[in-house]
């Protein structure tokens, strides 16, 4: 038993580390370190830097411009990215629609869409969930009626993350209603967000941010050439995509980064108070989360070792999302507790980079800890809620 990397893998790790040290845009790094919400341009500039290095298509095969990395290389990359506190790669283009297009799309679609996805020239968003179809995604009601050379789409999609920036949307819509199983008759379509009849309505979330949207389709005409794969097979394609959504969902490296940062933070006195590291109640809670995180790290490594040796991962892989989000949420709660009264001021105006320091309330990111804590309650809900994850494990792992 050992978890050491080979010479080549270590060299690769150094290369990735150097990239995040030297080429990760400094302004984006500064925002990340201060916990400031990123804007569209920040994500784009980070992803363009990755693309210049040839690393935008982490999961993509080489023939489509991807890295062709081994599972271990992907793991190393994700780990270094988390340790550098880099923002997540916006998944909708690079990790979702891209893989669906190169796996199931026709040559024309590959030529038309893939290069812009790799170069982050086009911002994609996801049209999956509907107001009545969340955990039960297959009960979706958005219709796409075929009419000669096009589909007419009507319906509402919701929880469309960062849809306000999107140039294109990929969506699941029902092309046949007369089906034996509700998973049948669903098709995978691509639509230009500028198409008449598409409107985007913001959904403001608990902490006051605008991250998600409702997207309405009112008699939207989508050319037949924007159908990916076969009509009625969209559910199968969509499932492939959800698997991509679940890669690196454990977020181990970033949780590690945040715990180390918390340890540093509590070692110092804030406003002349006794440093929190002298409070056993608090440090015991930090230690308990560290233990869980160490366990998760090795659970992830066990999965990785299985995949790298070509065998299927064991049941331990299915707990990654549940445990990963629980740990992320526990860390958010620790930061909030550490801030005490100073986690409570609601002062969005001071989150601007150029806000004068002497007018700020609270030290560092204190006042943002509550926003982060409330915002991240979403993590155990999205991408298949943790209850749905447990149903999947009960059914497919335990065979119940």
């Amino acid at each position: 038993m050992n978890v050491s990397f080979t010479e080549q893998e270590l060299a690769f790790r150094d290369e990735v580390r150097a990239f995040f040290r030297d080429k990760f845009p400094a302004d984006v790094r500064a925002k990340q370190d201060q916990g400031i919400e990123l804007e569209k341009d920040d994500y784009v500039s980070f992803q363009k830097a990755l693309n210049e290095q040839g690393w935008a298509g982490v999961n993509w095969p080489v023939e489509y411009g991807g890295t062709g990395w081994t599972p271990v290389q992907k793991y190393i990359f994700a780990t270094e990215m988390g340790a550098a506190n880099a923002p997540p790669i916006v998944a909708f283009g690079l990790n979702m629609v891209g893989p669906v297009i190169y796996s199931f799309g026709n040559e024309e679609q590959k030529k038309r869409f893939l290069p812009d996805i790799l170069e982050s020239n086009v911002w994609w968003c996801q049209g999956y969930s509907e107001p009545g179809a969340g955990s039960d995604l297959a009960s979706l009601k958005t219709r796409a009626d075929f009419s000669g050379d096009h589909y007419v789409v009507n319906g509402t999609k919701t929880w469309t993350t960062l849809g306000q920036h999107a140039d294109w949307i990929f969506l699941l819509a029902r092309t046949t209603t007369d089906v034996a199983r509700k998973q049948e008759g669903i098709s995978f379509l691509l639509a230009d967000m500028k198409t008449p009849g598409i409107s985007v309505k913001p959904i403001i979330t608990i902490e006051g941010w605008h991250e998600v949207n409702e997207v309405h389709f009112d008699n939207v005409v989508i050319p037949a050439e924007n159908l990916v794969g076969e009509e009625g097979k969209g559910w199968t394609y969509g499932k492939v995509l959800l698997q991509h959504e679940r890669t690196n969902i454990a977020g181990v490296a970033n949780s590690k980064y945040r715990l180390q940062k918390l340890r540093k933070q509590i070692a110092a006195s804030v406003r002349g108070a006794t440093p929190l590291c002298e409070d056993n109640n608090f440090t015991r809670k930090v230690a308990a989360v560290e233990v869980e995180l160490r366990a998760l790290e090795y659970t992830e490594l066990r999965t990785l070792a299985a995949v790298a040796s070509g065998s299927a991962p064991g049941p331990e892989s299915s707990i990654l999302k549940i445990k990963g989000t629980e740990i992320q949420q526990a860390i958010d709660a620790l930061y909030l507790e550490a801030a005490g009264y100073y986690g409570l001021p609601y002062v969005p105006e001071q989150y601007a980079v150029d806000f004068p320091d002497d007018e700020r309330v609270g030290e560092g990111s204190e006042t943002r800890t509550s926003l982060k804590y409330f915002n991240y309650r979403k993590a155990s809900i999205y991408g298949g809620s943790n209850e749905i994850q447990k149903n999947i494990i009960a059914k497919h792992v335990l065979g119940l």
Partner: protein
Amino acid sequence: MDFSLNEVQQMLSDSIEKFIENDYDFETRQKYAGGDSGFSSDVWTMFAELGWTTVPFDEDDGGFGGGPVDTTIMMQLFGKALLVEPFLANIVLAGGVLKRVGDSEQKERWLQPIMAGELQAALAFVEPQARYDIENITTTAMQVADGWQLDGAKGYVLNGGNAALLIIPARTAGATADRDGVSLFAVDAATDGISIKAYPTVDGLQAAEITLQSVMVGNERLLGEAGKGFAALDASVDDATLAVSAEAVGIMQVLKDKTIEYSKSRSQFGVPISSFQALQHRMVDMLTDCEQSLSLLMWAAMVADEGGDDVKQAISSIKYHVSSAGRKLGEEAVQLHGGMGVTWELDVAHYFKRLVAIGQTFGNADWHLDRLAAN
């Protein structure tokens, strides 16, 4: 054995319930919270007209003569309404100090207008370095020729941006964490040398950071005896701790009820999600936590009413419980509401935020557990 309310308490409870039902729905609350002062002055005036602002004050002072049980009833209902009007800041905190150590002249000058709803007041019980230890006071008051000079800083002063009267605990003797040597001053917010940075809080209230620089006040501003102010500060903060615990219990009950209601109306996989046993058990846990919190609240209110030795134990017990079980219940309510639970539009999100905020004001779960363990 009787846990029911007496006739007067029942009338008070009924009238507040009626007000909430008729005049204080969630949209109205959001409108008030979003305004400049963060509450409705019309509602506050109405509270005074109905005498609700006089409840915890002695009849001799022109009050209703109520006790902790009455305040608990009110705060629990205010929790259910997610009320933003500054009952806690004016009546429980600032009023709590004034009723305990104000002389008749001071009560006439400040407590009367507070009860009349004409004066907004705040008690600056937090210092930026103190976390939850209220005796940790570095603000100083130095005796000068014709009064006192105050210097220092206060944090998270509830209602601090609206208050015309600030009650400032300051050290006239002793070391930073001594209970002796704390004096209480009633200071006009407009006094030279006071700067106030007001802000809304994440739970829809208003607070302020306040600095005092060579603030000169007269002798008539000293409340009670110099150096002996801690007992009144401590008792008022204990009152407030019980009050926010009651508020939290009201919030927990609403979140529990709303979650059960939602689970019955939300269908997934062709059935209401309330039919899933995994979720049923979690809602039973929510109910259990609500009932346990309510029991501790009733115990604490009765102990506080009797004023025995175990008041602190009782208050720390309920506050620990609502801080720990309450936060968990709030997280569960949001989780069971799914995506809707994390939207600004839904009231559940705002109940949850207030519940979490209560959890880390007036001592968090650890702080109260420490206090319990030490005794």
